[in-house]
């Protein structure tokens, strides 16, 4: 008896789901119909978030017809969230941009690649000649591949000679970078996802893990269900689906959680939960101006009684005490955070104060312990942080102001060292301000949508309107392409090969399994060809393949903290990614930094280590810093005129500005429009009913939007998901930024709301 294709697929689907939880379906349950002869499967990585799930792309008759979670990938072990599930639909979206266009007389006209690239090269060279290299800029993305960001870095910093090169990770991860650098001396976490299954306690702060990082959440839930003693503490102003598993939830007023973290540190020390030996061996204390002794730090903390923290944050005293004890009593603890911590004018400080708790209790460097920043975008860590795609960085955690770093990079790039300026360029907000002022006259925007994603967005449309704007994108139109003079069609996921580096220092290879749609081309080669046309033939003509670019990049990582020289394409094509440092082709990659098994630690002399099991080699004497930071609140606190604290964020079904998920009817219909969440008590007081149209207003703009009366935001707070152009939350958000990380405070501003 034959089986139909439907039965065959159902069997395959059931078997794949069973395999994803490490089980097999017994005969009688499902017949072993597993050979999918007509489907070719390719190992890849999810295009969306920084979790970095492994996917298998099923190609049939030259089209992507199925997606499967990769059960051999240690991150997701076969599971995906719904976004990953719809990846293939995005490839075939109606809004794919398939040919280059130049705006002529206010209208986009289809042109050849030659015409488009010659035009951009000519305009950029004219601007550079007339106004100098700093009149040009590049704005990239944590969704671009490492090879793509590398090419942009070389073109702008090494050839054109401007450090005006930024990427949207400035808007999401810069405070985490600042936090790691100031606490440990080096960027990126010590631990990995492997710590999840070994942790006794999780502190999830400023993160809606269930919706923004679903597979990480699943791992936490699965672990807690197996081990009911595992405790989960949430610190977040909003109730979210993550609460399903919380043991304790602290709801601070948005932007007022620093005092809670200090109060927790104070209780931890006072009640004897601190690891005094760890502190003695591995920690120094500092405030914003000077070194402190441990005693001076304790003195500093005296102000932060639970009562004080309660008054500042609105969290009950007993909950603050409970939270501190929960952290202190657990043998192992992992903290995770995202934008609720990073997108703040004191994001770096907030990062430091989380890490303080780990350093005071010695809960770092051991299995199940880490201060672990969750990354928003799939390659913010790999391409932009590691690849050096920000205005002060060079590849492989180098900085432009270090002459040795400039020399090392210039040598590999084959450019005069004098081309690389020693002064950092303009960070994101400053860059778009300079565009408004006409100081920057030409910008190349790749794989991102700043006209919608910048804070206080409408303020920056002026510059985009007035200056020469090139947008390389896979989708059209977007809020940013409206302002473009030239749009260049970029190959999308699965139409190009390259590497993504995710949250846990893991670099993973993605193959090209399809030809790009229409005339779309790979971003790295668009930049290469533009470079050649701008006169940098010798610098760019040598790159024939993605591997050429990757090999050059990893040569720059040799001997650095993020040594990737053992992560060759040959290996990455076979393995499910490698976690750096991975200094040679026979090295397995590194589970934990700063301890035994980390090749950099292992190579330190015994004289240096002096018998210590952990050595923070990014800092003098290998000692990490516990920071005594002031407890500053948000830039724009609520007041009588604007009495609500407004926060913005994601929903599970959508990604950033909808350029991708907006093309999937299923996802669109699941959450078709924006809304503002308001607490039932506030709604009642203002006469607002569920689904009423309301006006949300801040000092920067107003938005007419549907109200969702729901017990999710704390009283006095509002929440708007920021994905839609039509209900653009970022015309409301504030563009004040952290003075250290330059990351804007998307997460808190003062607002008011009324019935429309």
């Amino acid at each position, binding site marked *: 008896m*034959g*089986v*139909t*294709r*439907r039965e*065959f*697929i*159902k069997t*395959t*689907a*059931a*078997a*794949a*789901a*069973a*395999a*994803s*939880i*490490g*089980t097999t*379906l017994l005969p009688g*349950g*499902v017949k072993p119909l597993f050979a999918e002869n007509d489907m070719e499967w390719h190992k890849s990585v999810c295009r969306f978030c920084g979790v970095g799930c492994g996917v298998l792309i*099923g190609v*049939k*008759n030259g*089209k*992507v*017809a*199925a*997606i*499967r*979670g990769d*059960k051999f990938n240690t991150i997701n072990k*076969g*599971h*995906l*969230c*719904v976004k*990953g*599930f*719809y990846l*293939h*639909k995005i490839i*075939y979206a109606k809004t794919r941009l398939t040919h280059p266009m130049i705006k002529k007389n206010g209208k986009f006209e289809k042109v050849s690649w030659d015409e488009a690239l010659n035009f951009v090269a000519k305009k950029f060279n004219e601007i550079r000649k007339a106004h100098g290299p700093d009149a040009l800029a590049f704005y990239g993305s944590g969704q671009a591949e490492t090879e793509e960001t590398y090419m942009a870095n070389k073109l702008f910093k090494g050839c054109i000679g401007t450090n005006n090169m930024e990427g949207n990770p400035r808007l999401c991860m810069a405070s985490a970078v600042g936090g790691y650098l100031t606490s440990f001396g080096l960027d990126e976490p010590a631990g990995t996802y492997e710590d999840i299954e070994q942790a006794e306690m999780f502190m999830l702060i400023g993160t809606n893990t269930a919706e923004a990082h*679903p*597979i990480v*959440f*699943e791992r936490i*839930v*699965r672990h807690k*269900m197996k081990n009911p003693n595992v405790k989960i503490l949430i610190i977040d102003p909003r109730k979210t689906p993550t609460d*399903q*598993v919380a043991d304790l939830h602290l709801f601070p007023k948005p932007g007022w959680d620093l005092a809670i973290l200090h109060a927790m540190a104070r209780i931890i020390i006072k009640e004897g939960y601190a690891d005094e030996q760890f502190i003695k061996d591995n920690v120094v204390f500092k405030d914003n101006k000077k070194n402190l002794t441990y005693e001076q730090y304790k003195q500093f903390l005296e102000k932060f009684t639970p009562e004080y923290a309660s008054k500042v944050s609105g969290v009950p005293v007993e909950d603050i005490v409970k939270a501190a004890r929960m952290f202190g009593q657990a043998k192992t603890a992992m903290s995770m955070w995202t934008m609720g911590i990073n997108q703040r004018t004191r994001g770096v400080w907030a990062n430091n104060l989380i890490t303080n708790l780990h350093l005071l209790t010695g809960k770092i460097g051991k299995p199940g312990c880490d201060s672990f920043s969750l990354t928003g975008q799939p390659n913010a860590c790999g391409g932009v942080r590691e690849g050096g795609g920000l205005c002060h960085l060079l590849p492989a955690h180098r900085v432009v102001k270090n002459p040795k770093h400039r020399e090392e990079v210039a040598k590999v790039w084959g450019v005069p060292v004098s081309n690389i300026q020693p002064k950092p360029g303009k960070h994101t907000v400053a860059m778009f301000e300079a565009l408004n002022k006409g100081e920057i006259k030409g910008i190349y925007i790749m794989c991102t949508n700043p006209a919608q994603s910048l804070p206080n967005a409408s303020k920056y449309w002026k510059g985009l309107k007035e200056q020469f704007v090139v947008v390389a994108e896979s989708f059209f139109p977007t809020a940013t392409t409206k302002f473009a003079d030239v749009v260049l069609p970029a190959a999308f996921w699965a139409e190009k090969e390259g590497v993504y580096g995710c949250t846990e220092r893991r670099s993973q290879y993605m193959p090209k399994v399809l030809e790009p749609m229409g005339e779309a081309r790979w971003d790295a080669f668009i930049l290469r060809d533009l470079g050649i046309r701008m006169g940098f033939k010798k610098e760019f003509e040598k790159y024939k393949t993605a591997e050429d670019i990757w090999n050059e990049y990893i040569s720059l990582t040799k001997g650095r903290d993020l040594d990737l020289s053992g992560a060759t394409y040959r290996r990455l094509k076979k393995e499910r990614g490698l976690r750096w440092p991975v200094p040679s082709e026979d090295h397995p990659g590194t589970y934990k930094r700063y301890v035994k098994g980390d090749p950099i630690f292992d190579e330190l002399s015994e004289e240096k280590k002096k018998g210590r099991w952990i050595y923070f080699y990014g800092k003098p004497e290998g000692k990490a810093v516990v920071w005594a930071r002031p407890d500053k609140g948000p830039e724009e606190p609520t007041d009588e005129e604007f009495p609500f604290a407004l926060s913005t964020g994601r929903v599970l*079904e959508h990604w950033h500005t909808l350029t991708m998920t907006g093309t999937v*009817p*299923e*996802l669109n*219909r*699941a959450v078709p429009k924006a809304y503002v969440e308001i607490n039932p008590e506030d709604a009642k007081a203002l006469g607002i009913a569920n689904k009423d149209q309301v006006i949300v207003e801040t000092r920067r703009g107003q938005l007419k939007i549907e109200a969702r009366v729901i017990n999710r935001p704390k009283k006095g707070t509002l929440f708007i998901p920021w994905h839609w152009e039509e209900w653009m939350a970022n015309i409301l958000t504030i563009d004040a930024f952290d003075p250290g990380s330059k990351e804007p405070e998307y997460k808190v501003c003062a607002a008011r709301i009324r019935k429309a």
Partner: protein
Amino acid sequence: MAIAGVAILAKKEEIQNVYQRLEQIPEITTYGIHQEQYIVAVVETSPQQDLEKFLKKIQDNDPGILGIFPAYANFEDEVLGESLDELV
């Protein structure tokens, strides 16, 4: 239309009830409870139904479900326009 293999993570104490409720839904075929916390199931939606919306509704309506995690999704009839009811 879509055929998806999913692992449904449910509260341990609720899992039997969740299983029974899922068995009543025509679009779902269940394949047992595993590791006390997962239900393996295949979801088949018709062209008029959105798989995503469908899964979301199931999760929202069942407090015993903690998460639904797709492991496999096949859309080949949509992408390639092929019938799935022919013998292979």
